[in-house]
């Protein structure tokens, strides 16, 4: 079997000697019989399951930091007149007298966006679950190249270290927004956040791109090449389809971002003028001529838009799987689900300029982007319809995972609908850069993706650690987060429709928006409660790793997919014996009077067709 062959090839490369009778064994022990040290098991591990945990825990640490930053800047937005002396003790001169400075505010906003979009919802979400589930659900012993997979995590770790270190440099981290538009990001003298912090940001992001590419390469070749016997593409669970197209998006869009960053680095340090033209900084005329700042926006959004699908597709896949399992019903419209993911993937590359309607883009060109953008509503609506019909009249088992999945569908609808508004270039003239945009993308991409991630963590935690997470804490976590998320972001729609612009430090002297003072205070208050609830989740997560209720069965949710046919604590290699053969699709629930039929059960001749 090709799977075994690959794994053993890695062995040979790793240990540098040939063990006879090892490569031809097909005994499937995987790496069980190897002596594993602490370093090779927990640190430089090549086991996809351990790498998944590394991605997850690094992502959780980043999520706490990124969310805490939002608490800090919400304090400023909610209580612009108040002083919080404790802020000065943690932020030092960035919060002199207990009030966040404007520079610190912009740094916090920028890092909040960067951290959550890339380090949490890209690496933490897709990195965790693609690694964990692809080999387990397609029936492979490990990734196509476990070594490259390990490199992918360590490049991510290096990017994390550099980004983290940028928080501690004297001039502070990057503060020109998570999009880092030039000229602000290209000129060191433009703001203090454009100095060394910006360089560290760019270097960290370039390394992040490398990590993402190494990971995606592996995901694609594992899915296409290393499926077990009988696992045809159409028998794959929807999670795998989603991870597959996520990886395709990443492989094709991240390199373009990298080229944009390379040009930006040359503008910063090589004296080139790719993005710079006729500029004055502090009264001085700059020599740069002939550049175009809009060029960067094209390169950035060519990744930037697929990036939102890189974030949401894995969540969609996991939600599809969890909804079917918890409703005890087959997923509704399997092929339509696959087709809509594919349609979203294609359209993702053709809509980037809808972020640029007000940059002076030719309105005739804009019309095409409006059309293509609105077209995305079609596959999205198909998916929403199929999720609802999947749970319709199902025998729903309410677990934290299924609640978060249903919550995902809710937030995806309410956030997605406002996308239809923003996709229109005419309405966008009014709504561009207002709180309406903030509300839209936080609900549809931020909250929804987080709900998908939470659902995935609650659902697959037993596979990762052999224990359950606490359900009661999970329910508390779900309800406060769902209600809180709506209370935070719903009012922002109204602020945005009234024209309140985003990225301002202080609105209190702005007569037009004085009426929102109380509302802003309310939002900030809810943010603090929701943040505290996330800490409850983090506590639940780490407590359950060591003290959670132990699993007594390898298949706790009565699911059909292959990962639940492995032992409770699978070794490196996943299955102690032969890799099981697959005979049916992943969604035979409530069929012929049986609650569920695992994928490994052969189809009997008198079985009804689905």
């Amino acid at each position: 079997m090709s799977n075994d062959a690959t794994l053993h090839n890695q062995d040979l490369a790793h240990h540098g000697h040939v063990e006879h009778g090892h490569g031809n064994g097909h005994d499937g022990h995987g790496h069980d019989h190897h002596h594993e040290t602490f370093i090779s098991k927990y640190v430089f591990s090549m086991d996809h399951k351990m790498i998944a945990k590394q991605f997850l825990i690094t992502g959780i640490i980043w999520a706490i930091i990124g969310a805490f930053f939002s608490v800090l800047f919400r304090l400023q937005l909610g209580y612009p007149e108040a002083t919080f002396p404790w802020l000065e003790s943690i932020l030092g001169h960035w919060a002199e007298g207990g009030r966040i400075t404007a520079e610190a505010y912009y740094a916090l906003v920028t890092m909040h966006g960067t951290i959550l979009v890339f380090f949490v919802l890209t690496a933490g979400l897709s990195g965790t679950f693609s690694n964990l589930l692809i080999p387990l659900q397609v029936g492979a012993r490990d990734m196509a190249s476990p070594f490259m997979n390990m490199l992918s995590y360590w490049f991510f770790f290096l990017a994390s270290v550099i980004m983290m270190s940028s928080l501690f440099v004297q001039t502070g981290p990057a503060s020109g927004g998570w999009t880092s538009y030039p000229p602000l990001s290209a000129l060191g003298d433009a703001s203090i956040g454009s100095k060394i912090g910006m360089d560290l940001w760019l270097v960290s992001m370039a390394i992040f791109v490398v990590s993402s590419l190494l990971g995606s390469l592996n995901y694609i070749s594992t899915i296409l090449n290393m499926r077990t016997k009988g696992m045809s593409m159409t028998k794959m669970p929807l999670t795998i389809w989603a991870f597959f197209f996520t990886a395709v998006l990443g492989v094709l869009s991240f390199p373009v971002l990298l080229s944009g960053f390379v040009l930006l680095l040359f503008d910063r340090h090589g004296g080139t003028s790719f993005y710079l033209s006729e500029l004055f900084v502090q009264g001085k005329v700059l020599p740069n001529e002939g550049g175009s700042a809009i060029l960067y926006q094209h390169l950035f959004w060519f990744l930037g838009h697929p990036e939102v699908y890189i974030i949401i597709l894995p969540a969609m896949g996991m939600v599809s799987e969890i909804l079917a399992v918890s409703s005890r019903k087959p997923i509704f419209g399997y092929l339509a689900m696959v087709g809509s993911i594919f349609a979203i993937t294609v359209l993702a590359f053709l809509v980037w300029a809808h972020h640029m309607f007000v940059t002076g883009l030719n309105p005739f060109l804009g019309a095409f982007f409006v059309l293509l953008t609105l077209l995305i509503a079609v596959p999205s609506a198909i998916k929403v319809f199929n999720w609802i019909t999947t749970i319709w009249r199902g025998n729903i088992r309410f677990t934290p995972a299924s609640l978060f999945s249903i919550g995902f569908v809710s937030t995806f609808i309410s956030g997605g609908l406002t996308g239809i508004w923003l996709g229109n270039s005419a309405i966008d003239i009014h709504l561009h850069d207002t709180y309406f945009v903030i509300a839209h993308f936080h609900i549809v991409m931020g909250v929804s993706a987080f709900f998908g991630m939470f659902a995935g963590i609650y659902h697959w935690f037993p596979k990762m650690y052999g224990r359950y997470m606490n359900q009661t804490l999970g329910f508390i976590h779900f309800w406060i987060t769902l209600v809180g998320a709506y209370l935070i972001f719903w009012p922002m729609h109204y602020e945005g429709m009234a024209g309140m612009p985003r990225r301002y430090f202080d609105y209190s002297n702005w007569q037009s928006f004085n009426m929102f003072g109380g509302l802003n205070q309310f939002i900030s208050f809810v943010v603090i409660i929701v943040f505290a609830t996330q800490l409850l989740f983090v506590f639940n997560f780490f407590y359950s790793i060591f003290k959670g209720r132990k699993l007594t069965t390898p298949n706790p949710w009565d699911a059909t997919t292959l990962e639940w046919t492995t032992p409770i604590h699978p070794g490196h290699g996943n299955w102690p014996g032969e890799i099981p053969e697959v005979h049916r699709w992943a969604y035979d629930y409530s069929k012929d009077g049986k609650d569920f039929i695992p994928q490994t059960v052969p189809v009997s001749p008198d079985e009804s067709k689905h």
Partner: protein
Amino acid sequence: MLTMNAQKNKIHPHKYSMWIAMASITMMFIGFTSAYVVKRAQANWFSFELPAVFYVSTGVILLSSLTIYLAQRQFKARNMSAYKQLISVTALLGIAFAVCQIIGFADMKDHGLPLNKTVSASFIYVIVGAHVLHVIGGVVVLLVLFARAFRTRVRTYSAVPIEVASTYWHFVDGLWIYLLIFFSLAR
């Protein structure tokens, strides 16, 4: 593709990964060259002749594609000494290619086209430079293969590493031809 089966599928996962990686690298250069096209359509575009040494380097890299092809054939025929010679020649040609490109940069600088003066020249430096880095990456891979060929304790019979390396080598060769034609046409 939908009915593709793992057992029928004979392509090695590492080769597959290489093809995806090449798609990815291609996208990066598409990013660069589209930026070039967009910039060129705007005002103040300064057009100039490419350094002549770029045509020499084209010959060098084409020759190196031939030598790595021969190396792969010798490996499969188990002519290990010929194989070692051929991959060394390929690696040397790769280094010669990089040197040619750097001579080209020096030539541009001497003709009043440094990195930071006009944006059309800046593009040449950055795009050609990014390509040279990819060629040097290939040279490093060849050096690893070279070192492996000298190991006595372990004999490698799998042709996959040399096949993957040679696919990549042809790819960076083709990429350079594309860039040269692109720069010549869109000046």
